[in-house]
């Protein structure tokens, strides 16, 4: 469980006909700053099933800024839920629904989001849609609590990459002083 005290919160979906479930009392979009890493986090509900997507943003200068989600070196082990499936700058669209955020004062607009979706075969779609194969989805509904927790984990992984890159480099000038070679040559 993490502190997701949202900076922006939206409830826009009409959930009539979805049946009873935790989604009825949940927000549909929230944006917050992860207290441990300072990274922007977000979840939003998607209209093609009512499931949630989670996102974490990195700022310019982060080693993975501008990386397509599929281009992240697998050896870094960065993942959330069943894997990252989205990446990009803030999307155009309705602020209450789109993958976008209003940055906090002093923070950059042009952050780069990495996201995951909870619409896999193992996930339940609250709007009652049928899964791709035709069978009713019987998976688990991934709540805002679950998605926020996954965001926290993803933020920690991304922060770790930044810290590893910022670690002091090895001294690289240990043997560049060659002047004595010229001055100490035996006669």
């Amino acid at each position, binding site marked *: 469980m993490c502190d997701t005290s949202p900076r922006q919160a939206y409830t826009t979906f009409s959930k009539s006909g979805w049946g009873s479930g935790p989604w009825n009392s949940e927000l549909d979009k929230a944006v917050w700053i992860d207290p441990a890493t300072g990274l922007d986090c977000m979840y939003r509900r998607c209209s093609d099933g009512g499931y949630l997507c989670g996102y974490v943003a990195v700022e310019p200068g982060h080693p993975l800024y501008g*990386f397509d989600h*599929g*281009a992240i070196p697998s050896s*870094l082990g960065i993942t959330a839920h069943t894997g990252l499936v989205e990446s990009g700058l803030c999307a155009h669209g309705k602020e209450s629904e789109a993958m976008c955020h209003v940055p906090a004062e002093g923070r950059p607009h042009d952050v780069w989001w990495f996201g995951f979706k909870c619409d896999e075969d193992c996930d339940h779609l609250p709007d009652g849609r049928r899964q791709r194969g035709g069978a009713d989805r019987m998976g688990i509904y991934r709540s805002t609590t679950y998605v926020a927790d996954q965001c926290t984990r993803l933020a920690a992984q991304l922060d770790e990459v930044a810290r590893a890159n910022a670690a002091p480099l090895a001294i690289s000038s*240990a*043997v560049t002083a*060659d002047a004595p*070679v010229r001055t100490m040559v035996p006669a």
Partner: protein
Amino acid sequence: MRTAPHGVLDEHGAIWPSIRLAFWRGRLGMRQGVARESDAPVFRDNEPWLEEQFEVLIAVLSVAARGFHTASRELSVDIFRNSAVFQHHYRNWLVGAGLLMMGPNISSNGVLTDEGWAALLMLKATRPNQLIDVEVGYGAIELAGGRAMAEIAHPAIDTRELAFLFEREDIASQACIVLIDRKSTRGRMPMRHTLWSASFGGKHERDRMFAWLCARSDRWDEWGKTAGRGADALSQHLLATYISSVDWREPNGGEHLLALTHVT
């Protein structure tokens, strides 16, 4: 040792194509190259791997020459790719070869023998053109070991004009190659959009793969478009291309990949 019509004549009457090879093979008794024992010897001293070895030797001798202590850890990190074992072995080898002296009142870097001084001066005086202006040490070793990437790139391709560019990058201390889309239209400002990456066990392996890619720089734009369909698509394509580029009848360990850089 003196000059001969076709090279350098050593004190044993052997003629070598260069003084560097006379020192490496004749004096130090090292192998000429990385080819198999059954191969006929090819006497060239401009093999990149050999240039790298010479740069390591110059660096270690220079440390001893400058006469003030340099921490063992510093040398290990800088020259020996973090291998203290290799560093200790190398230092002991130099002592055994008579180029370095160690002793109770001598810095752990050692001091040069007269022959060590002569070897250092000779090696510095005969550095290849592309290294003359490079400071002795890590940079020169990396450059020599990197096989002068620009030289093996496709001669008809100006990589500055390419929309997609492979670059070497260290991400979270891991040696990686990334593919950049330099003309990405995402966002309001031009930005580096990374479409693909691969990580390697070390810089050496990474650089060898990069050399293989550089030799095929005429294909980078096409490969960039492939990556546009997903990083996995390019990974599969590169794997297939690499496999098809290898002559498996003559697998020669890791050095085989180096040979590929000349087969475009």
